[in-house]
């Protein structure tokens, strides 16, 4: 069964443990700029919002790549960059509408979320469950449940 990352900004505290776990997994370093997941702070609104690749089915980055360096991992559904093939042309970074594939000046290749081969480290690191790894067909169910509780007359009457 395929799974997806589910990001819930309401739970995020902006601690960046996810970025640290990601950069450590990908780069062996603690370095937020090397993280494929990024936390954005909207100070005046009092919001912290995690954002990363959603692994589009019809992925713009994959379509745009001139050397077919981006392929699908059939087990996880992740679009993965094959570093040996990538020529660092950055066309994918232009093609991605969400900005979630980025160039790494150290390697001369692009880098993006690959779901850590099915064991996403940001999920393990997040202390608040703002990032969870859930059934791809049911990413909305937890939010549905919250609304179900709100719209359930019997419960709100109780």
């Amino acid at each position: 069964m395929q799974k997806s990352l589910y990001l819930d900004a309401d739970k995020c505290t902006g601690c960046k443990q996810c970025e640290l776990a990601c950069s450590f997994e990908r780069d062996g370093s603690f370095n937020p700029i090397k993280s494929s997941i990024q936390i954005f702070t909207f100070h005046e609104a009092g919001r912290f919002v995690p954002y990363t690749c959603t692994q589009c089915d019809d992925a713009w980055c994959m379509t745009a790549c001139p050397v077919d360096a981006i392929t699908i991992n059939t087990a996880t559904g992740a679009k993965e960059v094959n570093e040996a093939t990538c020529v660092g042309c950055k066309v994918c970074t232009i093609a991605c509408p969400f900005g979630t594939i980025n160039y790494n000046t150290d390697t001369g290749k692009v880098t993006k979320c690959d779901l850590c081969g099915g064991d996403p480290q940001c999920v393990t690191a997040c202390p608040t469950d703002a990032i969870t790894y859930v059934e791809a067909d049911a990413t909305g169910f937890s939010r549905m449940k919250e609304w179900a509780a709100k719209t359930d007359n019997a419960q709100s009457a109780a």
Partner: protein
Amino acid sequence: MAWTNKVLRVNLTEGTLRYEPLNQEWVKDYLGQRGLGTRYLVDEVDPEVDALSPENKMIFATGPLTGTAASTSARYSVITKSPLTGAIACSNSGGFFGPELKFAGLDMVIFEGKSPTPVYLYIENDEAKLLPADDIWGKSVWEADEILHKAHHDPQLRVAAVGRAAESGCLYAAIVNDLHRAAGRSGVGTVMASKNLKAIAVRGTKGISNIKDPKRFMASTAQEKEVLAENAVTGTGLPALGTQVLMNVINEIGAMPTRNMQDVQFEGASKISGEAMLEPRESDGKPNLTTNAGCFGCTIACGRISTVDTSHFSVKDKPQYHHNSGGLEYEAAWALGSDTCVDDLDAATYVNFLCNEDGMDPITLGSTIAAAMELFEKGAITTEHTGGVELEFGSPQSLVWCAEQVVAATEFGKDLGLGSKRLCEKYGMPDLSMTVKGQEFPAYDPRGIQGMGLAYATSNRGACHLRGYTVASEVLGIPEKTDPLVSEGKAGLVIAFQDATAAVDSAGLCLFTTFAWGMDNIAPQIDSACEGDWSVERLLEVGERIWNMERDFNLKAGLTGADDNLPKRLLKDVAKTGPAKGRVSELDVMLPEYYELRGWDSTGVPTDDTRQRLSLA
């Protein structure tokens, strides 16, 4: 490794910058941050210098775990000589600035001298330069932060700056980073402004990749994060209510400093408590608290992000405050609230915003305003001094007016900017100043929590809760419960807390972890990250060495055992209500035992044996 092994030395007088390796011999004995920064300071600064002269230095120091995946790895400290106390100053802050310094490859930045004109330091990885600060001098921290972000076209830039309070010489000015995190106490911001240094803006993308044993480090830090998550204080209380979880608790046990410490319980406490911050307001249906927030790497997330009611008198006509920012922590809520008898949550939150916006220590500000209110009550300050304004306990208008005077540096505002010791001396009633070594008390009345009286009296930076927080044991039962009303056994307890705290402050970690972590939770995280063997015993020895080194600086600066004292009010006037009713602080019983257990002579000077045992320079 975990240290970057690189120190940036900035000579502001000459405008020169130079890199040097970190002193590895000192690392072995002082670990990092508070300990190591202080080691550099005592080596380079004559303790007798005027704190606001170019001869004083100021050190920004990170710890070995700063910026790593260890929980609460956000911390850095600013070490200098304090203009408020004349003693050592070491103020610790979280946010995101400290880790950014580390990511730029720096363990420390040492500032020397005084710039002839206002400047700020810009650091981008290995490149650092002093730039003119003409367009940010005279601006608030918030304005300076925005201008610097625009000037460098970099939304990721991390800024630590001083505000207008520091520029006008307020003696308790803070250095504020990331808009609402502060190296708050002892006037470290005043020192920074005295050097004509407005801000440090840093961007680091080098990261940390020299952990000694990465696998063991990740396993150890993951395990200890679980411990924090499962603990009632760090896993539930602090995320839900912040440090404000304490407001009602401390009030109930009769240790809530109220009315300039005339009382130990505040009838309005529940109105300014953490619980009150969750209550929807009448005006817009929103609670004061928008969300909790974490500093970098913090899995506790006690930070408060709040708004002021836009219809409140303090901000009604000031749309620039109609947004979220750093909300009330317990210390600010107490000092701006119960000590001034103001039970108006919005007024306290607004003044807290001002403290962040213009860099003031809310504890000293609130206590100084409370002292001014008592001076007014007793007729020493009159409407002639205030230009017609009445300073009344319980008046949110008085509180707000006073805070705005300090920011605007009006004549009376400058008096308030002196802190309560100098204010009360100036107006002829020195006994009304609630301070130790010139620094105001935090939120625990020592008549109701005996250990804290000793902790305050002996604290190396003046009255402070962050040098030996025996509240943990005496109130919360961590690591084990002791009776807050009993002074027996407290000397040993205070020493244990002081030494452990010095070690935690030198690691790059937040002290709040110690609600859940003992040294045996902390040592393996340091040991797996850092060269050398970092056992619990060694860390405690480092802590004790740091404590004695700070003491030594203070003694050389001219302080003596006589300064290990409390105001008469706490030694002579009994608590009027609550469980501590009828009691005073029993400092006289605890202090001699403390000196003895420390290995100091009867005047409070470390003996030669003690110095040798700790290999103190």
